[in-house]
């Protein structure tokens, strides 16, 4: 493990360094809490062993700062103090330390502490990996591997807040597969799933870098187009619609030669107005219904943007 030893007194530092290295670990040294904090940022140690009483940033403050970190992996903290300072041990543990050592330090006590440190840091690193993977899965649609609705909620709130603050526009394009139910009825649900994946792939390829595609619901996809005027977004939506049509996935529905298509309802956020992101979504949805009513396989722009 990489271990950071913090002590303002040289004899203690040398002894601690000697013991740590004799146990086969890498030892970094800091002469006070501020230097330790700097080294933690630069080197991400697995374990910090810190003296309690130091001028400037002391052991307790260092514990607090380490625990207040929000990034990086868990750092196991051991406070080194003398037997006459037992009160400090409890305060240190409450401030975020995992264990303590009494001075003068000896190899056996250190070794046993480091066995626990190794176990705990390994476990927590595993947990962090699982958590990251779960967080990714929770935001991914398992069928299409696109971002899902949960992800949309967060991303859209962030995009909307940014657009409002800086007076920028963005567009939402609600895409719905035409006559999806008929397709399912003809080919079965498994074929329906396969088709949804193809639609997702095709739309994902058609959008520009920086645009985002979500699976919104059953056969609904949502394109989020940041920093785009309605005019540009309409061209992007039309490109996506045409790409799917030209893919020529047989629909086998009403007419022979029928292929899978989408209808798209497009809406723009007007930074001069007082719209919420739900308003934009609703406008896009209304435009989608208009596209369906007008005969499907087309892009309809909601009449909400100022015509310039």
């Amino acid at each position: 493990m990489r271990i950071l030893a913090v002590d303002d007194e040289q004899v203690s530092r040398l002894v601690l360094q000697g013991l740590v290295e004799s146990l086969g670990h890498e030892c970094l040294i800091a002469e006070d809490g501020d230097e330790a904090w700097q080294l933690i940022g630069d080197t991400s140690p697995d374990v910090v062993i810190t003296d309690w009483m130091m001028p400037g940033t002391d052991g307790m403050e260092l514990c607090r700062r380490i625990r207040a970190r929000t990034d990086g992996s868990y750092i196991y903290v051991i406070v080194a103090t003398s037997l006459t300072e037992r009160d400090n041990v409890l305060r240190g543990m409450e401030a975020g330390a995992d264990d303590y050592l009494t001075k003068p330090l000896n190899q056996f006590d250190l070794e046993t502490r480091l066995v626990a440190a190794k176990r705990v840091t390994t476990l927590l690193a595993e947990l962090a990996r699982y958590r990251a993977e779960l967080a990714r899965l929770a935001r991914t649609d398992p069928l299409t591997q696109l971002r899902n609705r949960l992800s949309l909620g967060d991303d859209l709130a962030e995009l909307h807040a940014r657009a409002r603050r800086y007076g920028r526009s963005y567009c939402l394009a609600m895409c719905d597969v035409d006559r999806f139910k008929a397709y399912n009825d003809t080919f079965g649900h498994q074929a329906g799933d396969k088709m949804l994946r193809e639609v997702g792939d095709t739309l994902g390829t058609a959008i520009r870098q920086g645009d985002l595609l979500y699976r919104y619901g059953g056969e609904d996809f949502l394109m989020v187009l940041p920093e785009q005027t309605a005019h540009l977004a309409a061209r992007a939506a039309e490109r996506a619609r045409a790409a799917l049509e030209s893919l020529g996935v047989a629909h086998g529905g009403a007419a022979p030669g029928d292929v899978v298509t989408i209808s798209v309802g497009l809406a723009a956020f007007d930074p001069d107005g007082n719209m919420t992101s739900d308003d934009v979504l609703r406008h896009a949805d209304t435009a989608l219904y208009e596209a369906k009513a007008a005969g499907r396989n087309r892009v309809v722009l909601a009449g909400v943007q100022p015509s310039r």
Partner: protein
Amino acid sequence: MRGVRSQPGWGELRPATAPAPASQTVPAEVIDASQLEMLRRVSPDGSLLRKVVDAFLVEMPANLSALSDAVKLGDPPSVRQAAHRMRGAAANLGATAVAGLCAQLEQLALEGHLTAAPAILVGLGAELERAGVALRGAAELPAS
């Protein structure tokens, strides 16, 4: 088998702890050897012990004079800080008498009463001298 009772007891291993007729100001041991033994075990060529003792001999006079200045100035927080540093260093090398006197000074400083400090400081200077001599000898000895 011989039982535990046949082993020498504590009293036989250590110098007699009964009040000695000799001067009471001289403790039986200057250095608690167990810390030094540990340092030799960790680094059998004696290099760690030499390095640590060297650091001790270099930094202690400066620490003592800082401590002495703080006592003269009647500055309890500085006394506490300096005594604490010295105690840590001394304890790491088993200089228990030095560490004990530093602990007394720390406690006085914590309570804000430094009247007894100058007397302890005199004893500390003497103990430091003895510890220094003993440690210098120990560090130069080959590992036993």
